[in-house]
């Protein structure tokens, strides 16, 4: 059964949206509030005078006074929408862009979840580039050590041990250990990351699989073949032999 996991991106989107809406409301309130209040007061005064309720009669405005506010309210560019509406346009744009960014982030996260690639991202071309010299330096030593010690112990254990030594030698910052990887997958990755002899490493991997997972006898012939593979890898390391 699966378990629900909290989705911080979803909460973030809701919070961001709410924040933008509040900002829009504040902007609208700042520009519309005073004018609406003024208009409402004037309308109210007119209504009370018409109904004949004598609460407090306002001073009779002169003709000049009554003309002046009318002139002030007259917009300079009557064909343009009001200023507050114009300010709402950039706010809506910001809101739209924010929504797009959040949706895009969610999409990317979802794709990575589907493909199981959640975690630190590596540069795609990193493993394809030839390794720096200091990293290649450890590999000949490991291969040489493997070729020297493969004569010790039973052929089965010796072949498995030489493969483990090779695995450990190629691992590093540029070549992280992947527990879910099969020997074939490791070979493909190693070939992409290091200049190794294609045939030799594939044959060594096959010998390792046979030694590790079979129950039939592993003979001295297998050991000799593995030794030859290690020597070939050592001889061709860095020469670009494929």
């Amino acid at each position: 059964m699966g378990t629900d996991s909290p989705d911080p991106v979803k909460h973030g989107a809701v919070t961001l949206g709410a924040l933008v809406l509040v900002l829009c409301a504040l902007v609208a309130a700042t520009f519309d509030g005073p004018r609406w209040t003024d208009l409402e007061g004037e309308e109210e005064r007119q209504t009370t005078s018409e109904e004949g309720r004598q609460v407090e009669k306002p001073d009779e405005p002169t003709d000049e006074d009554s003309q002046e506010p009318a002139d002030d309210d007259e917009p300079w560019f009557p064909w343009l929408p009001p200023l507050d509406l114009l300010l709402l346009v950039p706010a809506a744009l910001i809101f739209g862009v924010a929504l797009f960014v959040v949706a895009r982030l969610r999409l990317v996260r979802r794709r990575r979840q589907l493909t199981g690639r959640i975690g630190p991202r590596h540069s795609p071309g990193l493993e394809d580039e030839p390794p720096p010299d200091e990293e290649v330096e450890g590999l000949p030593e490991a291969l040489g050590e493997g070729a020297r010690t493969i004569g010790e112990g039973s052929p089965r254990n010796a072949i498995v041990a030489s493969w483990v030594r090779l695995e450990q030698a190629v691992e590093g910052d540029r070549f992280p250990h992947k527990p879910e990887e099969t020997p074939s997958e490791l070979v493909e990755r190693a070939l992409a990351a290091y200049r190794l002899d294609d045939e030799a490493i594939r044959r060594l991997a096959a010998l390792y699989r046979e030694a590790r997972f079979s129950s039939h006898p592993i003979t001295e012939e297998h050991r000799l073949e593995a030794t030859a593979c290690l020597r070939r890898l050592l001889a061709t390391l860095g020469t670009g032999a494929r």
Partner: protein
Amino acid sequence: MSGHTEASRKARAVLDEIERAVVGKRDALTLVLSAILAGGHVLLEDFPGLGKTLAARSFAQTLGLDFRRAQFTPDLLPADLTGSFIYDQGRATFEFRPGPLFTGLLLADEINRTPPKTQAALLEAMQERQVTVEGETFTLEPPFHVLATANPVEYEGTYPLPEAQLDRFLLRVGFGYPDSEEEWEVLRRRLERQREEQTLAQVVSREELLAIQAVVETVTVDPDIGRYCVALAAATRKHQHTLVGSSPRGGLALMLVARGYAVIDGRDFVVPEDVKAVAVPALAHRITIRPELWMTDISGRSVVETVLSQVPAPTARDRV
């Protein structure tokens, strides 16, 4: 070892012969043959016209098996498959007339077009390898294999197989569309043949097939490989997208088919690569996705692929 070598040689010869008829589907054909060598049944699920029926007929011809085809229609009854007792007036007795189930390889065409009652009759025969009619039980002689086909897009008037019945199939395999070169090759071969029907040579006899299946039973499965199969099946149950994951039968199927796959590859032992190669067709159809994800592109396949990229494979380090 020589038994495995001979079995591998014959299995590859079967695939080579089938490839004369089915173009460019070596991987899918290898999976189907792995399941047959493991003694199982296969569901071929794909769009019409991709060679499912041709592949089934080709397997029957090359493996030297009796071949019957049952077209699963809405009015098909269980007795139409199992057979029934017919009254013989001359002898004044009831005689059993066997149905199409009594064969070596049965093509159950469009299995999802028949009602669940008939589906259940077939699936019971697949599981028990016997048929009971009127209280009398008849054993289905080995080898008995079912290749069923289903169309994944047309749902009108169909009865989709429930999960419990899908679980009876060792593999679910899709052939997929050929690329343009392969498609042209299909056309070219038809022109060259100058007739519609394709006849393939028999590569192995029924007895030889049984012998190869016996060899598959002797293939070594390291305990770590077995635990890897169990871990993969268990991981599908814990995956966040699954409502119901694979049953233990899924882990078993994974191991059995991997053995057949190893024999075809010429080995008498299973390696993690075999398990990974058969994992999607062996497990994906046993997984039920959570209902809220039905309208997304998440599927049993994506769950198995994720699990394969997360579950640690057997390594050498625990051996040294």
